[in-house]
């Protein structure tokens, strides 16, 4: 274990700013991190578009129209239509729904499970930690997309299967980051005080360690949203994601290249939607990370990318 013993000096900043109103806090955040704030605004807009899809989409995303097949962008269909005359704009809007739902569910599920596991590892140490670390290492030995493909193949390619498959690939990241946080917190005097006054391990983990992990948890979740969206899209693109005709951005890209000469608007807009969304969430994640714990950044980047720590 000595090989990976040197943990990054993870410091947890308790509420650094005195409590002010939420708005003032947001204003301060956006002054310091203009890009992150922009990412946040775009991200919120995309979430709103996804939620309000039925109100915003000009057409039914599944309705075919054989009089308007393969039409380039025009006045009736702003982003054109696909091979069976479905409106691209409506499909991109509804695609946001599926893609975001899958990404949010998978990240929340995976990161939460991973974080709880990480807290237990970091606090309990010992054999449990050792075995858990090996299991997480095994999970990380698979390239994300390939593990997700194999799992969704095994449990059937439905919406839940895809969510579950992506969630599993997120577990070790949550586990490792939160474990290192928990490791440093368990040495703090107030945790020792808790132990001394006879609190059970479970009680201390839940009441004293877990609350300190909220900030890194938020950072993790935001940073991994982008990754989850890309994995979901890749699965859809490869034809092993959420099954058609449900519009997802990945499915739309897969549909577009079945044509001999793929119409550019079918190949372009869904991909643009993916890129903008991922960009927004990544920028927001970076900003949140810098704000919540600037000292975490470089070591954190390494962890994010796969967790060899030194």
């Amino acid at each position: 274990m000595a090989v990976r013993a040197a943990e990054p000096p993870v410091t947890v900043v308790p509420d650094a700013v005195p409590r002010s109103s939420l708005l003032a806090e947001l204003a301060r955040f956006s002054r310091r991190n203009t890009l992150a704030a922009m990412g946040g605004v775009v991200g919120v807009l995309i979430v709103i578009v996804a939620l309000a899809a039925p109100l915003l989409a000009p057409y039914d995303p599944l309705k075919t129209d054989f009089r308007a097949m393969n039409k380039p962008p025009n006045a009736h269909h702003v982003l054109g239509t696909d091979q069976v005359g479905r409106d691209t704009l409506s499909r991109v809007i509804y695609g946001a729904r599926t893609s975001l739902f899958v990404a949010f569910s998978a990240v929340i599920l995976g990161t939460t499970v991973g974080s709880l596991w990480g807290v237990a590892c970091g606090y309990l140490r010992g054999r449990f930690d050792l075995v858990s670390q090996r299991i997480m290492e095994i999970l990380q030995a698979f390239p994300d997309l390939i593990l997700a493909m194999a799992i969704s193949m095994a449990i059937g390619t439905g919406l839940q299967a895809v969510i579950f498959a992506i969630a599993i690939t997120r577990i070790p990241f949550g586990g490792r980051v939160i474990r290192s946080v928990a490791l440093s917190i368990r040495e703090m005097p107030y945790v020792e005080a808790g132990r001394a006054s006879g609190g059970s391990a479970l009680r201390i983990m839940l009441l004293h360690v877990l609350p300190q992990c909220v900030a890194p948890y938020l950072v993790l979740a935001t940073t991994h949203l982008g990754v989850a969206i890309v994995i979901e899209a890749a699965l859809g693109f490869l034809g092993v994601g959420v099954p058609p005709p449900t519009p997802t951005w990945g499915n739309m890209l897969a549909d577009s290249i079945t044509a001999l000469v793929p119409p550019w608007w079918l190949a372009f807009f869904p991909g643009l939607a993916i890129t903008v969304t991922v960009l927004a969430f990544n920028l927001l994640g970076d900003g949140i990370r810098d704000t919540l714990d600037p000292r975490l950044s470089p070591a954190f980047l390494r962890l994010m990318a796969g967790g060899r720590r030194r």
Partner: protein
Amino acid sequence: MRKYLARRAVYAVVTLLGVSLSVFVILRVLPGDPLVAILGVEGHASMKPDDRVRIMADLGLSAPLPVQYVHWLGDIAAGRLGKSFFRGDTVAALIAHRGPISAEIAVLALVISWLVGLPVGILSAFKPNSMPDGLARAMSVLFIAIPGFWLGMLIVLALLFWFGYKAPIIVVHAWQDPWQNFQIVIGPGIVLGLAQGAYIARMSRSCLLEVISEDFVRTARAKGLREMLVVMRHALPNALLPVVTISGVLLGFVLGGSVAVEQAFGVPGLGRALVTAVIERDIIVVQNLVLLYAVIFVAVNVLVDLSYAWLDPRIRYS
């Protein structure tokens, strides 16, 4: 050093055993019945009982699960990887035929990522918060966000419109026709390389900035060395270590990403073979290919760890 090597090797073997066990559990145990995985629920329901028994025996699926697992490990050790359920090709032949293409793509991507990422990172760190730094950071943020397979699609589309590009259908190895082979692998290599290069640029920038604030760099500056020398000779070698590490980690992105990027370019590599196998539910092929990808990933990370120990005496002697 020897002790370190031994310990690292033991960990790698344990990880690989765990990896093989999880592949087995995911693909053979989770679906309940492997034939359901192969034929789908409807296909499985419409099959006659004696067909079922015959196919199960054919695939070596009638034995109890632990026995199957041990058999599988034994087969791998003996180099027998089984064969495709639908095509009759052996998996070993598939790997030998398609593997080199994907390996070339991965190596090319790695080379491109260093060639692009490192200079950009150094340039950024030279003058942090300057115009070029801002541009470099914007580009790396952008290239991290763009999904490789989409970029690949767009490139293919552009080539199709302007040059009448056709996706390569057959495998051409480097030793058969280097020029044609290069045309097959260059596209995916560039796309994957740029995405990786973005991470490398980011990483080398932050590491270099971290190192530049250290005492020995101040000393080097104080004795009057030119900034160029300070950065290149004193700071860079120390900043490179984490960049080497991240390359190993990024290989995971390349391995996974190449599956989708190969599909986008229509390149007949191993990644496409895996996708085909997953779609056809060709369980033996999937099982062995997924294991292969994981083995490569683990092996590369062991190599990275070793190079790390070799580059940094502090780790070797700890």
